[in-house]
């Protein structure tokens, strides 16, 4: 009986521990928590007043701690770099507010209201995962808060249900067929797909399967938790004549282990990982393929200065950082454009300005113009192959 009581106490404590979202506020809270919805033209600066620096904050929602922290820290650092560089170049005083979501919808929905109630926050970069967008979309829509994701690719996020949502990456409607057509084009006959039980992963799996089946490829599916620490039983389920394993996963180290265990059990199937696995440090199974929503910017000459600036300050990075830089830049420019027009930035104005984004060039190597649903026009996926431990752009 005593043991059961202790167990119950433990369950309660674990449940309570699961709910600690911490949003570190780096700006003074504006006192009232109501959302400013005044149109921008109500708030024009009067002449004769001392010139005020353009200010405000952007919130960054990323998995800064927890199992996906390696992604989140990279995203946060790129956002910091974007804010620092922008402030320096334009004399603005825009602050960054961190919100740790741990890639967990429950955490994200704790952080979102904190951001909403901080009247200084005019736009949000993030959250990172599709499952988190679903958790915060309605909260941000109600608050009129523009939010720009740097990595959420689930297709139906931009079907109009979240009117203030934007993303700088292409969708799984593009990625799924890209992967499936590639595998079919490489002569795949028997494919094993494992989702990792996240909204991102199941959505992508659904986009891949019909294309494979249309190409007469035999598809077997399975599913494993993102928290799993051993895949050997799952690997035993991959039949010896399977020639491709597709992993639409988010945690690169998991795929690394999967690949090692595949080799350990003598299976020869090639691995195709989705964009979530793009991580030259953590996923290095020789000969595997990985799709990416952004090019490797270290290979783009125009980005050399930026790469240098980041590496000298924060070290190496994968493909999650640069889209975050792009998303943060969009938010920063939106705020700045209102200041330049003589207005005082508020969420409604920033939302309008974000929607009207028109960048002829970006860190992602392509122009950024949003369509009506919040997707970047003409965004495409890239395919990389791991050769001698390096990610090499695969061109066929």
């Amino acid at each position, binding site marked *: 009986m005593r043991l059961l009581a202790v167990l119950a106490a*433990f369950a309660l404590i674990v449940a309570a521990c699961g709910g600690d979202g911490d949003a570190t506020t780096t700006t003074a809270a504006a006192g009232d928590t109501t959302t400013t919805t005044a149109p921008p033209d109500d708030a024009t600066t009067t002449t004769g007043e001392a010139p005020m620096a353009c200010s405000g904050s952007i919130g960054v929602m990323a998995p800064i701690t927890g199992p996906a922290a390696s992604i989140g820290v990279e995203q946060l650092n790129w956002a910091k770099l974007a804010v620092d560089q922008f402030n320096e170049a334009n004399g603005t005083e825009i602050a960054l507010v961190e919100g740790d979501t741990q890639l967990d919808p429950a955490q994200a929905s704790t952080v979102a209201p904190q951001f909403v109630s901080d009247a200084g926050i005019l736009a949000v970069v993030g959250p990172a995962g599709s499952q988190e967008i679903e958790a915060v979309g309605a909260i941000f829509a109600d608050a009129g808060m523009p939010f720009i994701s740097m990595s959420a690719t689930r297709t139906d996020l931009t079907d109009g249900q979240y009117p203030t949502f934007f993303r700088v990456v292409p969708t799984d409607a593009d990625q799924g067929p890209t992967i499936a057509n590639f595998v079919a084009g490489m002569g795949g006959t028997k494919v094993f797909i*494992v989702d990792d039980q996240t909204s991102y992963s199941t959505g992508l799996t659904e986009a891949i399967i019909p294309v494979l089946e249309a190409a007469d490829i035999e598809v077997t599916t399975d599913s*494993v938790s993102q928290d799993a620490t051993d895949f*050997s039983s799952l690997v035993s389920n991959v039949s010896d004549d399977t020639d491709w394993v597709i992993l639409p996963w988010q945690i690169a*180290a998991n795929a690394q*282990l999967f690949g090692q265990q595949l080799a350990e059990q*003598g299976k020869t199937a090639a691995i195709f990982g989705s964009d979530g696995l793009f991580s030259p440090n*953590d996923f290095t199974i020789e000969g595997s393929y990985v799709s990416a929503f952004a090019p490797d910017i270290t290979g783009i000459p125009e980005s050399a200065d930026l790469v240098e600036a980041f590496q000298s300050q924060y070290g190496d990075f994968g493909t999650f950082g640069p889209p975050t830089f792009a998303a943060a830049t969009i938010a920063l420019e939106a705020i700045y454009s209102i200041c330049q027009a003589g207005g005082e930035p508020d969420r409604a104005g920033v939302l309008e300005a974000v929607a009207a984004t028109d960048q002829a060039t970006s860190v992602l190597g392509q122009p950024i113009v949003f369509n009506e649903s919040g997707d970047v026009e003409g965004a495409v996926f890239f395919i990389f192959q791991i050769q001698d431990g390096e990610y090499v752009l695969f061109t066929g």
Partner: protein
Amino acid sequence: MDFFVQQLVNGLTLGSVYALIALGYSMVYGILKLLNFAHGEVYMMGAFAGYGVLTVLGGAGSAVVPVPLLILLMVLGGAAVSTVLGVAIERFAYRPLRRSPRIAPLISAIGVSFFLQSAALLLFSARFRTYDTPSMISPTTGVVIGPLRISLVRIIVIVSAFALMAGLTLLVSRTKLGKAMRATAFDLEGAAMMGIDVDKVIVATFAIGSALAGVAGVMVGLVFGRIFHFMGFIAGLKAFTAAVVGGIGSIPGAMLGGILIGMAEAFSAGYISSTFQNVIVFGILIVVLLVKPSGLLGRPELVKV
């Protein structure tokens, strides 16, 4: 049949690691009636210590010592760091609270757990680290029987886990310290009155349990490749479940529970679906507790009047 044996090996590997961690939970609970929730983090720190030894000795592919010695040193390093950590946790987080209500050390344990997790995050950053075992022991070396493959690293893990468990059983049943541990677990105050240095026994219990967790951490690094600051939480939860299924406080129970949970995970992933892996594991916990509330090998608690 091959598939069955393959899953058996998978389950045995996982199970022997869970068993090693579960022993620490069970031994401490047996003596102090304390759920040491920081135990998962002790295991995590052991894994990082093993990684540290590996790095200091030149890394997986280019170590300055032969591979068998390298692995031995990693295991010893992991065990040593975990032992020191476990003893320190007992000294600073639990001993001052020994006379407080039982909930106090429990909260303290959870605090230590978060403290160590965050410390690891600060010290080692959030990145996954890999032992890069394939550079030490080729994943294809091992026993190959037809389509069945048992890699050498799995054999090492399973054999050494069982050897350690046998050693612990001998220690508890045959040595003076073991006798003192059993006496203290049976009745702490009584043992103290019989002249047993209870504090010493408790420190020894923490040291042994933590050393086993440290070894488990290094083994997980070797067989599953990657380690990270958060790894102690889930492993700790599973091992705790194993300890409860086996009968918390019982040493053979922890071993049995660990193997059982490992097997359950492997076979549910193999024959049913990995989707329901955790559901099945915790389902077993519930069923066992309903049928036998004290666990498979646990003794019903005596109420002292």
